[in-house]
């Protein structure tokens, strides 16, 4: 089985501005991989490259064994980017619709499973920020692609909602292991959710370190108090802030 994502020697520049420099990474099927890095380190550019929106200056990307192009990934943007004129269920099936057939009954079933029952016929503006992000995640999940790309999906949420969303995401993901590439600038979030964490440098982004997170699944929230977790968090913080190692 091909890896969900393979990136080899990827570099990209916008004119003279070099954004990514010689990045290589892998996401195995069913693996949760995070990228942490400072804001503006080219993380969103990486997604645009993987999603086929732009062509890289150098390097190779393959998604599920195929060269990267549009329509191969399930994408969840930073803002929910829901269509305000569509009901929640119509928003959820959007990616399916683009590929051919929308399965609304299945969408309704899923909405109930992720704590949004009764909202199928509502419009996005009637939902809170956290709920809108759940819809955006479900839309990506139901696109039925082998790789889910989540671009700082919780960065706009308040701290409390964010913690709730972590629990929610872990529960759903652990029950439906799908390969995930998750971008964030929140170190704790990356360690809590992932199997593997790549640390990005400032622009032009290179990989400073690849860390394998040593905690099993299902993962409990209490893991953040584990001494090993605290040590890893310290290590990552030092890496990212450039403090002495």
């Amino acid at each position: 089985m091909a890896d969900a994502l393979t990136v080899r020697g990827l570099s990209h520049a916008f004119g003279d501005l070099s954004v990514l420099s010689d990045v290589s990474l892998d996401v195995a099927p069913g693996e949760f991989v995070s990228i942490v890095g400072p804001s503006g380190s080219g993380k969103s550019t990486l997604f645009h490259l993987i999603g086929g929106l732009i062509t890289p200056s150098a390097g190779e990307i393959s998604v599920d064994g195929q060269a990267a192009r549009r329509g191969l990934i399930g994408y969840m943007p930073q803002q929910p980017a829901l269509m305000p004129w569509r009901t929640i269920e119509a928003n959820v099936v959007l990616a399916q619709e683009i590929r051919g057939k929308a399965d609304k009954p299945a969408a309704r079933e899923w909405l109930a499973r992720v704590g949004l029952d009764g909202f199928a016929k509502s419009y996005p503006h009637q939902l809170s920020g956290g709920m809108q992000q759940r819809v955006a995640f479900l839309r990506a999940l139901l696109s039925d692609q082998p790789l889910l790309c989540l671009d700082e999906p919780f960065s706009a949420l308040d701290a409390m909602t964010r913690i709730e969303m972590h629990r929610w995401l872990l529960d759903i993901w652990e029950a439906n292991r799908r390969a995930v590439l998750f971008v964030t600038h929140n170190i704790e979030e990356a360690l809590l959710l992932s199997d593997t964490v790549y640390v990005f440098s400032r622009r032009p982004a290179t990989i400073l370190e690849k860390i394998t997170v040593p905690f099993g699944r299902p993962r409990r929230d209490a893991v953040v108090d584990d001494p090993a977790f605290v040590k890893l968090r310290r290590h990552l913080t030092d890496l990212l802030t450039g403090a002495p190692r």
Partner: protein
Amino acid sequence: MTFRRALPPAVTLVLLIAGWQIYTSVSGIDAWLLPSPKGIWDAALLQREALTEHTMATAELTVYGFGAGVATGLVVAVLLHLAPVLRDAVYPLLVISQNVPVIAIAPLLVVWLGFGLAPKIVVIVLVCFFPVAVATLDGLRRSDPMIADYLLMSGANRRQLFTKLQWPHALPTMFSGLKIAATYSVFGAVISEWLGAEKGIGQYMMIQKSAFRADRMFVAIAIVIVLSLAVFGLVVLVEKWTVKGRRRG
């Protein structure tokens, strides 16, 4: 509109008409100069049948003209949106063309197209299509770039980008254009009837003007207002059925 919001303008209107009525009876001003509201109402009742016929003629003309104007506006908007080269070449000229007074070209239209329905429809199209075209074009261009990115990464083609994002996003702005066009359409129909018509409120106005019948002129004005409101109301109704969910901006 809710009753609460409708009340203040209604009260203002009633006060204005009452003031007008009082002024005409106290000042003793001649009725051919400024008729009283009561006098205007009586004039309308007296000519009820003829007025109904004129109103129907103008209403019919308005519907045709408005329909043709909206269709033209939408076609122009979509064409200019899909072909940016065309937009760059045509859009500035379109804006400039709006400075040409319709009243000035109307007689030319009669010379070119004769006295039939054609020049009248063209006049209405000329006043109606522009607000629809500009509003729709703006709506099409200003759709959310984040949703566009999302759709493209999900594999949407150009047609899907248009039908699923740009067109639905343009609907509320398009309706703003339609509302402006709706208020212009009746006025366009009246102007076109000034060119020469057998029936219609515009033609009725021309006759009453030469007879110095101020009361009947006011009746005609009132009918034009009611017709405009009716077309406007129709657009609002269709908007309510069509535009779902809350829109930003």
